[in-house]
């Protein structure tokens, strides 16, 4: 029975959490209170682990909660519950777009959506930059992080030899630089 309930709870979360990333958090907090599957303290741990492992945060959270509540099958069912509404809604929109992509209203809407979407991504980049470049203890600028950012900018934008390297190379090098040079 717990599996049906898991699927249903995560299906609802997937249907009503709009905007991705940590948008699922308020729903999970509510779920903890309603079902008793996990505590608010465990939820904070789950956020930390989800943010520090590969994969979209929302999916990581669903897998973690599902595992805590019902082991491996629970993890599978919670994840499937979370993605089912997305898949259904997006498939409907994708079919619509395919049939109406030459409609002048649709073209005009996307002409305005692209710059808005790019602006939103830029703003979220800024907030990542604030958390990455400012020191949590002092509130001042973290010098080592700024040096790392400057080196990465040079390597990914200026030097022709390294510009084309895969982003994962830079992520790996930055993790190593963090371990070697950053203070905890």
């Amino acid at each position, binding site marked *: 029975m717990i599996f049906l309930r898991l699927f249903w709870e995560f299906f609802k979360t*997937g249907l009503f*959490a*709009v*905007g*991705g*990333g940590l948008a699922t958090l308020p729903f999970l907090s509510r779920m903890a209170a309603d079902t008793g599957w996990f505590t608010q303290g465990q939820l904070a741990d789950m956020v930390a*682990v989800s*943010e520090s*492992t*590969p*994969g*979209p945060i*929302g*999916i990581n959270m669903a*897998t*973690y909660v599902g595992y805590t509540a019902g082991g*491996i099958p629970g*993890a599978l069912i919670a*994840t499937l519950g979370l993605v089912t509404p*997305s*898949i259904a*809604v*997006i498939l409907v*929109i*994708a079919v619509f777009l395919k049939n109406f992509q030459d409609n002048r209203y649709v073209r005009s*809407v*996307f*002409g*305005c*959506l*692209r*710059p*808005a*979407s*790019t*602006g939103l*991504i830029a*703003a*979220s*980049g*800024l907030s*990542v*930059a604030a958390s*990455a470049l400012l020191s949590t203890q002092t509130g001042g600028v973290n010098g080592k*992080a700024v040096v*790392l*950012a400057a080196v990465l*900018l040079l390597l*990914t*934008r200026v030097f022709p030899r390294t510009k084309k390297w895969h982003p*994962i190379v*830079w*992520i790996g090098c*930055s*993790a*190593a*630089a963090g*371990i070697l040079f*950053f203070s*905890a």
Partner: protein
Amino acid sequence: MAGYWELFRTFAKVGVMTFGGGYAMLPILQREVVENKGWATDGELADYFAVGQCTPGVIAVNTATFIGYKERGVSGGIVATLGLVAPSFVIISVLAGLITNFSDLEVVRKAFAGIRVCVCVLIFNAVCRLWKDAVTGKRSLAIFLAAAGLAAGTSLSPTWFVLAAGALGVLLELPGGRERGKSK
């Protein structure tokens, strides 16, 4: 046309290389899906992110469903999404079973401080690329600045930005709106 296994594998690769939310996935998608596979353009990625902002569910899943559908129809959308979530599922199940204080480890915290710096540089590069497709004139520049400024300065949900930009797109195409919209 991409095979199912190729779709699954490509999105599993994207899932494993994404650290953080949907936006952190953008540079990886540009490399794997736009450059390596040619399944979408930078502009289409911006569209998918915009739609993902105001539809239910995790943005990363929405984008995978869109691209999978475009390549192989409904079943392609489902296969791409399952590929994307597969690495999360495996990694989180293992971690949740083994260690609960993973993110308390000093080495993990330092590595992620480094990765965060890298992610903000990669997002900056990704925005520069999207810019070419999205910001093509004064009107789109104004939309970009308004979205980025408001998103950085307020805590309004991104959904409202996308809905407002979409409504603007419709208004500009209404009779009488054509002349005003010509400076695009």
